[in-house]
């Protein structure tokens, strides 16, 4: 992401939001500053100069919307972000998740650029749990989905990914999870059992009886109203005793759902659904 000289104004932002909403993609309850920066990013990426250029492209090439959603969605940019979170997940949360009936459901409620899903799959595989789980992941862009299914994550971050992996004391090396046939790709068999759920801009369909839901660093892109709505969906999908993981700077405090959860680990923002 660059700091281009073009800054989109509030009037133009509203005009873009209107077009997107008319196409069924409602971003009106996204956090404004980050959304404006994402628009500037998309405009620069496609050489569109300004908001008029972007609106012209959306109007004249409706199929551009999938590429737009791919580009506007902030990537996680690293695997195993917050290694201490993944350690706690592996050592304290997963044993509880797998205590109950067989084939527990784990739900990654937003796909980002694939790093969270591959991190989760690798952790599960190392615990010999990957074939004993039902994995769900929500996605918004077909292009993103195709990349994730092919394992083509951003390889510029491989050093960061490796450093994070070492910090969580993984069982192998990050390179052992690369594809043996394709270059610059992770092993796509890690995610072949995942059930992918399409959504536009917000969660509309959720699996039921989920034992662990991950929604890390996605609420930061939403305003308070949409955060409440999303948390309601996440809460309803979880079984009693199920876990919810948020980003380490996101919190249930001061939300309507806080009374539905107990804090399992405050540093890593892991919550447990009350019975």
């Amino acid at each position, binding site marked *: 992401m660059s700091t281009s000289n073009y800054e989109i104004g509030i009037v133009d932002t509203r005009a873009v939001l209107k077009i997107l909403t008319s196409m069924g993609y409602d971003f009106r309850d996204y956090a404004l500053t980050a959304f404006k920066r994402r628009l500037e990013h998309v405009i620069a990426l496609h050489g569109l100069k300004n908001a008029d250029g972007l609106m012209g492209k959306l109007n004249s090439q409706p199929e551009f919307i999938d590429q737009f959603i791919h580009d506007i969605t902030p990537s996680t940019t690293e695997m195993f972000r917050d290694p201490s979170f993944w350690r706690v997940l592996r050592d304290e949360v997963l044993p509880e998740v797998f205590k109950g009936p067989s084939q527990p459901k784990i739900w990654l409620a937003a796909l980002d650029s694939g790093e969270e899903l591959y991190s989760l799959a690798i952790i599960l595989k190392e615990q010999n749990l990957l074939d004993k789980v039902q994995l769900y992941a929500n996605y918004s862009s077909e292009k993103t989905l195709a990349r994730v299914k092919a394992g083509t994550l951003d390889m510029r971050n491989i050093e960061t990914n490796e*450093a994070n992996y070492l910090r969580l004391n993984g069982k192998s090396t990050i390179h052992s999870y690369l594809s043996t046939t394709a270059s610059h790709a992770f092993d796509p068999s890690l995610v072949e059992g995942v059930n992918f759920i399409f959504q536009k801009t917000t969660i509309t369909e959720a699996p039921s009886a989920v034992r662990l839901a991950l929604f890390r660093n996605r609420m930061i892109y939403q305003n308070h109203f949409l955060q409440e709505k999303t948390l309601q969906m996440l809460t309803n999908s979880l079984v009693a005793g199920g876990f919810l993981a948020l980003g380490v700077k996101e919190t249930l405090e001061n939300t309507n759902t806080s009374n539905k959860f107990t804090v399992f680990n405050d540093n890593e923002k892991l919550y447990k659904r009350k019975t």
Partner: protein
Amino acid sequence: MHKAVIIGGSAGSFQVITRILSAMPANFPLPVLLCLHRLKHVRSGFVEALSIKSSIPVIEPMDKEQIKPGRAYLAPANYHMYIELGNKIALSTEEPVNHSRPSIDLSFITAAQVYREKLIGIILSGANRDGAYGLKRVKDHGGMAIVQDPEECQVKTMTDTSLKMTKVDHIFNTNEIIRFLQKIKHP
């Protein structure tokens, strides 16, 4: 009348910022936004280190935290810190800018959009050009631009680049920055 102070720094800025925070009046009338380059994988320790000598509370904000006067807000490790309309902090995991997350440019640009001419931007010692463009945006929006005197900086890249890009209002050494901030009164 100003509404916020934003300070950016990198290599060589820790002692400067510690001195500034220790000299702040306890009833400082504005929020102080701090974007300092830091190790991305070390989440704890930094805010505690800055708090020891600070005369105002130093907070590592949660997402959408309300910004209040008389407090310092430190950009958390591995997040960009934006200033959102409605006087709130918004965090982001978007790609690093100038190899930095938090990026000083992004904090300064978004603060400039919200506070416009009522913002004071200060760039301290640093080994990276991150922050120079942000300070320019502060000035473009009518805010006040201050740069630490490069003669005093441990590393001059950040201040030199800032001075090349922007006709700043003041070049101050640490003592002058402190005296300037101490003179800011309640509206």
